[in-house]
């Protein structure tokens, strides 16, 4: 099981959010920081953090934090709190 904190930190770093920002409810279209540039940075950060390669369809489907959790499940990354 992986620590959800690692995914939260990947989001905060890539989206340039302060360390204690709640990110669990983040949605792509609601967040001005989360633009296409931040998205590329986020994908790279997640790939590095969990040592995986994310497929094209998953890159463009990753439109919220919760969706990221679900997608990472497909790559064998399961989270605990």
């Amino acid at each position, binding site marked *: 099981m992986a620590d959800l904190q690692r995914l939260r930190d990947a989001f905060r770093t890539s989206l340039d959010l302060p360390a204690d920002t709640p990110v669990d409810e983040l949605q792509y279209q609601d967040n001005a920081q989360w633009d296409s*540039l931040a998205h590329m940075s986020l994908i790279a950060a997640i790939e590095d953090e969990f040592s995986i390669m994310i497929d094209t369809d998953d890159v463009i489907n990753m439109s919220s934090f919760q969706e990221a959790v679900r997608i990472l499940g497909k790559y064998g990354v399961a989270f605990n709190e």
Partner: protein
Amino acid sequence: MTLLHPDARVIDAATGATLCRAEVDAAAEFFAAQPPGAVFALTATELPAIARYVAAVETGRPVALLDPDMDRAALGALLDRFAPALVTGVADAPPAGYRAERDVWIREAPAAPVHPDLALLLTTSGSTGNPKLVRLSRSAVLANAESIAQSLSLDADEVAPTTLPLFYSYGMSVLNTHLLRGATLVLERTGILQRDFWTAVREHRCTSLAAVPYQYEMLRRLRFDPAKYPSLRTLTQAGGRLRAELVSEFAAKMAAVGGRMIVMYGQTEAGPRMAALPADRLADKLGSAGRAIPGGSFTIEDDEVVYRGPNVMMGYAESADDLAKGDELGGVLHTEDLGRLDDEGFLFITGRRKRMGKVFGERVNLDDVERHLTGHGAVAAVADGDRIRVFVEGADAAQAQVVRKELASWLHTHFSGLDVRGIEALPLLPNGKIDYRTLEASS
């Protein structure tokens, strides 16, 4: 010649709503009832903004296309400098000197007078310092739209999704060419990294995509496969030099499905397009910016690329008084790019006269970057493709990160476009100046 062909369609992918003539007429009627002067239009990728843009062009009211997300301090500074009659696309309370009427601010005192030929005002580098505005005449805007449409053989069957902001000159030129040819523009706001974008490409049977270098890097990361979108026939590229490897890669992908890749070259100062590299010459002219578009020509003067054509700007505006000025350039643009022409007239760009960099397609003056960072000691900034690299003397990794965040926030860009590193001592030339060549070479 009018900008809006009667058959042109603009459709909002999210709502299905389309631009109708009545909406343009209503905006034109509103403008006609207002005192004279420029309109500063915060231009979102939405139907009302397009209706207002078309209405302004048609009624002869100069329009400045601005980033709808620009902060209010920067907007306030622009209003102080240029004294426009109207500001559109603003939902909040107006600053002193303006009153609000729905989402428009109307200037209470008389606005700065404007030259009768002036149609369009565009910013060159978005966010730093006091941006200059490029003054384009109505005939320059229409001439360029017509030349681009010709060189790309656009017709009424073309369907382009918005991949770039409409206030950015490349995004605007996609809009203009499609309106002019009676083609279709699909308004999509999520961008090429989101599912909704590709759903819109498929649903609306889009035929072309316009992208700048960093978007090609993204498309490559996505392992973009045109075969999945059979309606897609054309990729265009502008907004800076795309590395030859990617040009070849995307050209091959498009050729494999019977489509084409067209590399173009331009500057906002030319409204914006100057050259296009036809798909069938791409392989043997790899690395070229193309040949002058119809009606234009290049010469090389003291290594500098000089362009002549009907689309060249009237000049810059740095203050309200400049809006009343006529044409100052006579159709001749000194691009400040260095280059050469081969015997068939193909242009190759070899460098830049001024110290300019780009961050994700947006021009950044490297001297401005250094000036902004003087509080951090000795710094040097160099261009690195679509990013900029900054060296800070004596900084450790943590300090470099602080500088990186500060610079990203000042430039309104994502920090991944900046590479900031500490260096023990900046290399110097014998004359004591910073040795930028050495810094550029260190990767």
